[in-house]
């Protein structure tokens, strides 16, 4: 069964143009997992269109984090910026790319906002 992380990157590759990133272009490399068992995803953003691969190459921004931390972020249980401050997620290179990219992470499943009730 694919993990939430696998699912996230699979969905990202299928996602149409993301308007929130239409002004952004660049690449982000995700190195997820403890030393020795790192899973790598390489995401290029071209004016809001994503391409996902497992390539190993230098990116404009590279992210290192543990499996469970990333899993929690993509499922809305944790917050990317809080994780960054906590040292649980590390970013090298252009921090703005991560700031803009984190918009695609979904929020918590439940919300009491009237527009959100009954969602998810």
């Amino acid at each position: 069964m694919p993990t939430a992380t696998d699912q996230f990157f699979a969905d990202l590759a299928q996602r149409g143009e993301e308007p929130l990133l239409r002004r952004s272009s660049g690449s982000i490399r995700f190195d997820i997992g403890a030393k020795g068992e790192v899973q790598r995803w390489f995401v290029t953003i071209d004016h809001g269109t994503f391409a996902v691969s497992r390539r190993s190459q230098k990116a404009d921004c590279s992210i290192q984090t543990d499996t469970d931390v990333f899993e929690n972020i993509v499922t809305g249980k944790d917050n990317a910026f809080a994780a960054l401050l906590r040292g649980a997620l590390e970013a090298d290179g252009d921090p703005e790319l991560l700031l803009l990219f984190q918009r695609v992470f979904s929020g918590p499943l439940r919300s009491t906002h009237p527009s959100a009730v009954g969602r998810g």
Partner: protein
Amino acid sequence: MAEQVRILNGNTFVVSDERGDIEASRTDPSGLFAWDTRFLSTWVLTVDGQRLGTLSVDDLQYFETRFFLAPGGGTVYIDAQLSVMRQRTVTEGFRERLAVLNHGEKAVELTVHMEAGSDFSDLFDVKNDEGKKGELYHSVERDRLVYGYRRDTFHRATEITSEPRAKMDKNGLTYKIRVEPQKHWTCELRVTPILIGRDGKRTRLGGPKAAEDMGEDLDRWLESAPKLECEWGPLRQTYRRSLIDLAALRFSPLTSGGRSLPAAGLPWFMTMFGRDSIFTSLQALPFAPELAATTLRELAARQGTRFDDFRDEDPGRILHEMRYGESAAFQEQPHSPYYGNADATALFVVLLDEYERWTGDKALVRDLELEARAALRWVDEYADLLGNGYVWYQRRNEKSGLENQCWKDSWDSISYRDGSLPGFPRATCELQGYAYDARMRGARLARLVWKDPDYANKLEKQAADLKRRFNRDYWVADGEYYALALDAEGKQVDVLTSNIGHLLWSGIVPQSRARAVARHLLGPRLFSGWGVRTLALGEKRYNPIGYHVGTVWPFDCSFIAWGLRRYGFKKEAAQIAAGILDAAEYFDGRLPEAFGGYPREETKYPVQYPTACSPQAWSTGAPLLLLRTMLGLQPLEDSLVVDAALPMGIGQIELLGIPGRWGRVDAFGRGLLHTDRQGRGRPELGTGARRRVKQAATT
């Protein structure tokens, strides 16, 4: 504690006593702070075991101070044979040059000791006295003394180095020195905040600029601002003070490529705040328009995209407050960022439009089209919690979220005449004004830049509809003013407040009602003689030193004056400007966040509200907006209209080199309006009374 000395660079700042010493307690705000963490809480200099006394303190720049000291405790005998100089500059952390001068005829042997330590308090710990959850440590590594703090993956450290080398242990640094007669000994200490990453990688935190660049940067900043010539000396001083304080309050988020926006205030609020950064950028537009551009870009990049109850985040919502400390990292506080405000989202669109009017920068308006539309959608849809066409607020984070999400955010700021407090949600009146203005301005941008006339028509229709309903539901007929708010049942929260001035600024008031509103703003219940009280005299909760229930806020008054001008009340706007500028003189040009609402005739001088935060950005911006208002500066296509209406005592005034889409233009005016009520000879603008405390300052 003794008088505090504060110096800063971005959100790195040092608060010490007048000796340059830091002896922080758990709840005391002194220390070296960077990114909302205290990296140094002890920093005490002794010579032969003796504390030093202060001879003088020179604030060289906002980022640099020099302390002249001598052994012995200030008030008692001072050993004139020996003096000590500490010069401290905030860089990435700080740098301190120590000099021990021997004025005697014999060589001296001394032990110089700098006691050091850090408690790594989060800024919120300092405010709330929370205990630490992680582990503190220290080490001496070759040439550096390191203090550290670790909690799970969260790891911060402070490195201290010295040239020449010192003997180091966990309590600090010790030097055994010999100083020949008429000679001196010097040393340089560096204190650097460090972030330690997953694999032990060290990253320096701290200000973006080196000290050498900072002096040049300040010169450039002052050079690029318009020049003010004014016969009335105090205004020159206030203007210069405002420009320097605004320079000090600039903050560069990590993602801004070095560009800066106004942080909210020193020391607690050296960070991005939606509301404060927007209001200050609006005030500063005619003087430093680049602040608005950065504010808009950075707030847009952090605009809400999802529903998150902990952060009170909704799609399209503009953030309230951003923090970088331990409590945000571990989600004990929601500031990563926190979104709980109900005004910044509409104000974001207001600023975008006002910015374009001044600068003609259509590229930014084009770039931020989606964000502006998302903001307008938030105003229309997600803020309308009751589905009746108004902007409402009610926090979803009931533990650490904000109850009042308007600028008057203290617990008792929103009350009925009988003093009782309404339930939630609440819809304060100024929020509806901002929503109206945002739609009107959004419509202009939609037509002009986004080329979407249908959207523009829709926004204008929504605005007109809101204006009609608002004037039906909020108008307090027996008092001829607008209610402070509606409660969830649609009942008026019917006190008289300064908020009605913001309604003039937003344009939601029909001409036919504007005079009644203006009359209240300058009337005896609201106008103190210095400015407009937040809550009117005679209301149950009125208190002249109540935070939002009777004090006068310079920022509030500056927007009220702008609103009065919008409706043609030139003299009334000038009267408010005169009062606030007179008050500024009593504070040496640095207006506090708020001062007491006592009648001016009673106290003769403005009574400062006790607050830890000064300078405060939107108070710093108030004189700038008042200048704009008094000169009647208004962009019209590619030219700048000047229509001065100035209080008489101000004399001749010239504002030279106002930047904008017209290049640079000059504005001239002369004080012709009688704003005084006593009518005699008049160094003060607002009353004509002569200063009692001290002579008018000149620069």
